[in-house]
């Protein structure tokens, strides 16, 4: 796939909509135009505006930086036809990867740090989210829609606002330190610095992503058949054991969905490390942003994006399979 040109891009960058050859009109042999449009329009849109741009990212990551606007050399000169493509193949290099990504330890560190923060945050989210989802699923039936609404409501408020809310709380003279000081946990004279550290980033992530963890967990716990627990109790199983042997295995699809729904976007998170993290909080999403906007090194930003995407492709595919399976269960 590396460096291969887009399927059929024209110079205008609009590849034609895919052929829907297998369209089988249900009634009669005439072409079902309605069905063709129903599939073709969104399909074409996504190919042009979603798939094709990724080919461009890959292309650019193999390109050279240039001091121009836009700051890179054109890769393929389509106007020159075959010759242009041959030139492109000859000039193909992995310099963005070998020259910058591997030699400069910053990118490796950012990647390792993102992986660490995303893993810790996802784990904390599970530990915090599970008891909440569990209690919601056990609450009286009339309460449940309200509880779900209460979890969703902060999600409707701006992400940026919710992250910003923590800036005031985590400041050295902010409310967290005041609260901890009142409890005698920290020395009020010398409050610990929390804002602009990895701890602040993790707190912000757990806060912002909690609804994404609680809702899938709740969905799987709420559907649970409670006679199973009764059966276990009747057979002499203590509650903690039936929780571990019955409830947890049943909720595993929810755990899986919640963990993926949080872990994948956290890996590329930009706003939270930028507002709550310090200058040494390296996360890969922020690295892409800085390379792109501050250093104006588009090829390296693209190369980092490609590396991140390659790392995330397995979790993303797992997420899609879980989505498909969840829908299958509906039928």
């Amino acid at each position, binding site marked *: 796939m590396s460096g291969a040109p887009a399927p059929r891009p024209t110079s205008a960058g609009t590849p034609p909509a*895919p052929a829907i050859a297998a369209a089988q009109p249900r009634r009669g042999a005439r072409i079902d135009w309605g069905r063709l449009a129903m599939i073709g329009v969104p399909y074409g849109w996504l190919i042009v505006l979603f798939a094709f741009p990724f080919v461009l990212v890959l292309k650019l990551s193999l390109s050279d930086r240039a001091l121009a606007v836009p700051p890179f050399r054109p890769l393929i000169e389509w106007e020159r036809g075959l010759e242009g493509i041959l030139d492109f193949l000859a000039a193909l290099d992995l310099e963005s990867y070998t020259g910058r990504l591997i030699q400069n330890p910053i990118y490796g560190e950012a990647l390792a740090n993102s992986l660490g923060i995303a893993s810790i945050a996802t784990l904390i989210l599970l530990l915090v989210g599970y008891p909440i989802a569990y*209690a919601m699923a056990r609450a009286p039936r009339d309460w449940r829609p309200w509880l779900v609404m*209460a979890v969703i409501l902060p999600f409707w408020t701006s992400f940026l606002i919710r992250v910003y809310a923590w800036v005031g709380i985590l400041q050295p003279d902010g409310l967290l330190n005041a609260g901890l000081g009142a409890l005698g946990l920290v020395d009020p004279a010398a409050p610990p610095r929390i804002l602009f550290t990895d701890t602040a980033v993790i707190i912000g992530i757990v806060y912002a992503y909690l609804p994404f963890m609680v809702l899938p967990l709740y969905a799987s716990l709420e559907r649970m058949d409670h006679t199973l627990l009764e059966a276990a109790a009747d057979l002499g199983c203590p509650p903690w054991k039936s929780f571990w042997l019955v409830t947890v295995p049943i909720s595993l699809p929810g755990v899986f969905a919640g963990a993926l729904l949080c872990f994948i976007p956290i890996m590329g998170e*930009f706003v939270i490390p930028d507002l709550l993290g310090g200058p040494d909080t390296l996360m890969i999403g922020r690295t892409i942003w800085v390379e792109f906007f501050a250093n104006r090194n588009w090829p390296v930003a693209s190369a980092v994006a490609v590396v991140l995407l390659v790392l995330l492709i397995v979790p993303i595919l797992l997420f899609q399979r879980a989505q498909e399976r969840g829908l299958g269960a509906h039928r």
Partner: protein
Amino acid sequence: MKRGLTWFNVTALVAGFTFLYIPLVLLVLFSFNEVRSVTDFTGFSLRWYERLFDNDQLLRAALVTVQLGLASAALATVLGVMAALALVRGGRFRGRTAFAGMVYAPMVMPEVILGLAFLLFFVATSLERGFVTLLLAHVTFTMCFVAVTVQSRLLAFDRSLEEAAQDLGCPPWKSFFLITLPIIAPAVAAGFLLALTLSLDDLVISSFASGPGYTTLPMRIYSSVRLGVTPEINALCTVLIGLVTVGVIVASLVQKRSIDLARRHARP
């Protein structure tokens, strides 16, 4: 076996909701602060709100954001409904797996990557960055959420209604507008609202997709937060939180009413 909430469950709920709501409550509280501090409340005042409504730049950004949100949510709803229909009613077609993949992927794809990809696309196609590019980018990343919302509703409803209409000679497009659309309407409305919220809220993708001189509200908020925390931003956030809360409550009342109506029709 007794069911119901144990003290552990109650603690989890109370602690969980406190954690979710305390930061927002504090944010709102300090928007009414007399002095320029967001950690020390000294007295009530509305001066930050006065300042806010004098800030032309901010109001212009808000207008742009709302226009963009409404336009992109409308377009995303049309495309999202089509995508959901294609996935649920489309049967088998070539590239269905790839199509489903493209529908689900933007939901979890890190925004930085999406934004970068959009920008490179706009540069490659020489589209001047501004309202149109913002619109295209927002429609693309929000239509997927509409598709998923509508899809679950389509899967839940009885297809024989559509088939009955078609057996009676109703053309497919007509049965869609007369039968399918009214039934999936709540999910379509929910999808529209979701797309609108995501669009109004977006910072990262907008930063990549917009050009010089075209700033959305989140971009404005972001740049002022970077300069420092002031009660003026708190006041702005409070206004937005208020609008969202009212919107969500109205939407859920409307939805509840339509569900009640549907129930009454279903049971003659």
